[in-house]
């Protein structure tokens, strides 16, 4: 299958501090790719750059053959809402659900770009089937949900737009191991049955690499290693630094 996302030599800075340096990556359509790295390595920054929330200092990002992000010099690229319209959905770190809105309204917002009400209703029913807890709580304010439920809510909301590429920022953060396992099982189903390409950032390297066909290791804003998921799991350096072996 062809390449869907191409990150070409990008750098991102916060003032004088380099957050990402010369990152290049390629994600194939239909794959699950993970990015592992320590706290502060720049993982979230990379996802934010893809959706246009961080301006690029250099390089460009291409999605399905179209340049979506580039430097200011080259007209800057698309705004976040337009990138979303191209078919990229991000589940942000910390979930960022609309806490004062109900579960159902959150799903409606996820489907903001869909104009066909029948299709929206159909997708909502699919989400309630896929995440039964959301169906049970659809009229509740999202703030009353537990952390794990909010994470499912955020994933379901992202899926409502039927994205081609799903970006997940630390989906397991702060959740009990069983819940994390459940979420990763769902991600696998989303990828296999809905044919959604998944790019996930995760501190739990073992879990992330096990579910991925390909992985990248980020250290201090640079890609230091990349390989097939199972190969990285066996890599001595990865084992030492990220798998606690």
């Amino acid at each position, binding site marked *: 299958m062809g390449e869907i996302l191409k990150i070409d030599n990008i750098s991102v800075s916060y003032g004088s501090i380099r957050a990402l340096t010369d990152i290049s990556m390629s994600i194939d359509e239909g794959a699950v790719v993970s990015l592992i790295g320590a706290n502060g390595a720049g993982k979230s920054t990379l996802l934010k750059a893809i959706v246009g*929330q961080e301006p690029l200092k250099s390089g460009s990002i291409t999605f399905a053959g179209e340049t979506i992000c580039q430097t200011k010099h080259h007209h800057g690229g698309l705004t976040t*809402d337009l990138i979303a319209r191209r078919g990229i959905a991000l589940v942000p770190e910390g979930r960022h659900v609309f806490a004062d809105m109900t579960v159902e309204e959150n799903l*409606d917002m996820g489907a903001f770009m869909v104009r066909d009400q029948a299709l929206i209703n159909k997708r909502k029913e699919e989400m309630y089937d896929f995440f039964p807890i959301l169906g049970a709580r659809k009229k509740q304010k999202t703030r009353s949900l537990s952390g794990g439920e909010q994470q499912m809510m955020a994933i379901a909301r992202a899926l409502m737009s039927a994205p081609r590429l799903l970006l997940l920022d630390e989906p397991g953060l702060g959740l009990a191991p069983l819940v994390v396992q459940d979420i990763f099982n769902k991600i696998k189903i989303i990828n296999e049955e809905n044919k959604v390409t998944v790019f996930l950032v995760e501190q739990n390297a073992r879990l992330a690499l096990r579910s991925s066909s390909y992985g990248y290791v980020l250290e201090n804003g640079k890609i230091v290693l990349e390989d097939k998921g199972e190969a990285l799991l066996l890599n001595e350096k990865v084992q030492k630094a990220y798998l606690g072996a």
Partner: protein
Amino acid sequence: MDTITLYMQYIVNGLTLGAIYSLIALGYTMVYGILKFINFAHGDILMVGAFIGLLVYNGLTGGEGAETGAWTLTAFFIAMIVSMGFCALLGMAIERIAYKPLRNANRLAPLLSAIGVSFILSNGAAWIFGTQSRRFPYPFENEPIHIGAITITPHQIVVVVVSVVMMILLTSFVSKTRMGKAMRAASLDQATSMLMGINVNRVISLTFAIGSALAAVGGILAAFDFRVYPSMGTMTGLKAFVAAVIGGIGNLQGAMIGGVLLGILEAVGAPLLHIPNGMRDTVAFAVLIIVLLVKPDGLLGKNEREKV
């Protein structure tokens, strides 16, 4: 008249005043919810709304002395709709020209810009229309209706009915429609709402349009009581702002409740505390101070510290 009926009468009067405050407070609160900024030109938009309404109404009916009837009432609603449309466009234009370029600037910059816009609007109106105040003729017979010992004028009924209709329309817009929900989402979390494909610039424009249209209605309704003049928006706007803060700024229900509450407290508080008419306005600000001391986030405000 015994004391109880007297105070019942004050409450009725306060309700009318409060309904107007509520309509105007909604504009402050909607803009604050999404931009975290106080649009100090909002009061002057209500003044523009009153002038436009008056011009259209007088143009259609011939103004003062026109025989009231079905046509004057129709003309009144036409004037209101034209004025709402005009102010919606004006609000959007002000946002685009005076606030949008400052969106990433220091927080004081748009505030100062708003004060500048406020002066431009009120001085512009004084230049165009002169500073003398004009009466907004009643488009209907304003014969008082006596219910028991309480007196209600038809204009009070119109004020309350129009205000309630506007508030119901707004509430169903934000809870039922796609753009209304997008407005709430953008005020809860702007960055995330963009991830949903929501064009936040368009949502902000829409917020200004709706807030300003409501201010136009508020201005026209206020014109019955206060007449129409270039600085009419200053005190009414300020008190509506107080109402928005009392209710919990950023919260729509808060603005509605805050407005009605402030109107009633003002109408009841002044005679109760023997405050002379010229100092009536002190009641509103005294209430503000008390609310801020006891519940700094307002009655319905979230007790949420600003995230750094």
